[in-house]
């Protein structure tokens, strides 16, 4: 039994009187691709916010590679090896693709407070940035402003920026939202490639993508995980069917 790289234990979150997450237990194994699915409003994005440090859980604990991370700041969690992308594209719109990726690359190279060197001349940073750009197939758009990219290109940029810190765990929040068939297939392949060797937790609505990409799937309904298993297990699970399609009524 491999030790999980990301563990949630009894995580709960309330906003005022509304309890959004009602006790979630999940284990993500190292290197696995794990999808999180569920109806709208189930709390998937909220769960991401809790794991990545945007919000603090009301109770429960979250462990990253054995280290407790619930309640820590987003930057601390990122430095411990977890990176996330956003459902609504969250890049630097007025800067070029190259600059966007370079900003993400600078921090792992410990350059955040440096005023003593010429960033353009820094070979490791430049090469790393170019490598990332190549990985997400954006080299042709190197000087384009991020705010002017096509939607799917922006999503690719998001993924690229998420990879820059070489995280053990990647959280992708609906990376394929709003894409066409071809774009979805392309991005799914991209994700498969770039997350090799890392743990991936992905929220996605497109079932084809989920079943082709994920090794395990968890189903979140009303803030609780009602089932976890391989895609085939989930497909056959009665509770999941009920959640998505409604209860069967004997006629």
């Amino acid at each position, binding site marked *: 039994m491999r030790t999980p790289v990301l563990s949630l234990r009894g995580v709960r979150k309330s906003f005022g009187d509304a309890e959004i997450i009602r006790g979630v237990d999940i284990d993500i194994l190292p290197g696995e691709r794990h999808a999180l699915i569920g109806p709208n409003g189930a709390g998937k994005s909220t769960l991401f916010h809790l794991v990545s440090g945007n919000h603090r859980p009301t109770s429960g604990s979250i462990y990253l590679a054995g280290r407790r991370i619930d309640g820590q700041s*987003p930057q601390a969690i990122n430095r411990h090896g977890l990176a996330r992308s956003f459902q609504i594209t969250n890049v630097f719109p007025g800067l070029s693709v190259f600059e966007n990726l370079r900003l993400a690359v600078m*921090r792992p190279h410990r350059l955040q407070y440096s005023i003593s060197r010429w960033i353009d001349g*820094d070979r490791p940073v430049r090469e790393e940035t170019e490598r990332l750009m190549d990985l997400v197939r954006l080299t042709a758009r190197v000087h384009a402003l991020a*705010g002017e990219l096509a939607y799917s290109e922006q999503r690719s940029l998001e993924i690229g*920026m998420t990879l820059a810190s070489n995280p053990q765990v990647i959280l992708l929040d609906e990376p394929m939202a709003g894409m066409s068939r071809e774009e979805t297939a392309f991005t799914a392949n991209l994700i498969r490639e770039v997350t090799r060797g890392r743990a991936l937790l992905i929220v996605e609505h497109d079932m084809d993508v989920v079943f082709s990409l994920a090794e395990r799937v968890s189903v979140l309904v009303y803030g609780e995980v009602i089932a976890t298993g391989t895609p085939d297990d989930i497909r056959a699970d009665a509770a999941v069917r009920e959640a998505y399609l409604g209860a069967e009524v004997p006629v």
Partner: protein
Amino acid sequence: MIRSTRHAGFAVAALVLLLVALPHLLSQGLLNAAIQMLIAALFACAYNLLCGQAGMLSFGHAAYFGVGAFATIHAMKALGGAGLVPTPFLPLAGAAAGLAVGAAAGWFATKRSGTYFAMITLAIAELLHSLAPHLKGWFGGESGVSAMRMPAFGISFGSTTHVYYLTMAWVLACLAALYLYTRTPLGRLTLGLRENSHRLAFLGYDVHRVSVLVFALSAMFSGIAGGLQVVNNEAANYVLFDMQLSAAPVLHAFIGGVKVFLGPAIGAALMTFFGYAVSDLTQSWLLYQGILFVLIMMFMPDGLAGLWFRCAAWRARVGTLRAMPGLLAAISAALLLAAGTVFTVELLQRLFAQDYRALARAAVTQPWPSVHLFGRDWLPGAVETWLVPLALLAAAGVLAVIAKRMVRTMSYATEPRGVTASTTPLAQAGSST
């Protein structure tokens, strides 16, 4: 920025040469104005580090200018008037004070963002403004603190020319440093603060710490500007913390253009020069500056520098000959608008002045005596008097409409975030610095 970096290089070199030659070309009075222009340019660029590059609107930058000024004047007075350091190094005191106070103030202020941040910076400046008169030891009360420049390294620093060269050297060095800063990792990170500080946290950056650093640097350069001011004036007074002084870099930076590196410097130099040139002729100079600022915020948000680049791009696109009519129309419209506004303001200024009102009350034969303006006498009661500004403004309006039609294609071709998503290199003008 500028498409051709060689162009930019030549322009900068020419400017530096001009600055070096200035004392031989100008009178003492104008040279003094040049010193003021340089100091204002540095202050505006220091301000823009925080505002245009990091996206944090500060309305209380006079605090760091003032703190730098007072630190420098005390350094000047230290050791019985001999000065803590030789005269050319005095602005270092301003830098140190600006850095320290900036770090402290920035720590508070950057805990919030946007509107809250702006209010906090304002309140910090007001705090100092209300506190200073009471701390007589440090700020000298009503009369302020004064000192004398001491000779150093064989130069007497007694003449304006000496002070000019000292100021010029410091300002050029600081501007160079500020430019080099934009090529460092922290400099690029500063732009990230403006574009999306939220995402930076998720990329592992301690956003608060970075913000404090940038704030402190901006305050440091403002402190140097304050120090230079004091080396020039040999005096510092608590009015340096006045709101007017905080307003100046804001107006200058936006009038010049915040997205271009030297934009604020250009805005500051222009405004300071005009202020100096017309201060004898009119009491309403600040009003004109305010009107210009509002007009720019409403119609030309990228400032004069941004406007220049857009015009240059348009001219390159359509050819000088075809561009001529549109440019002429636009320039004429601007001049007529200025003339009409100035006429109206100056007329009103004189009509509402105390001495005129006394005159009007005393006059028996004519209820409204004539006003002397631009070499002529105008009767407020006469229709012609008001027809002149009306005609000027109307002509300006007509020409503006004509010019707008002629240059309509200009906006579409060079708008960086246009619907047509132009990919020409011209579209990059005015975007990330």
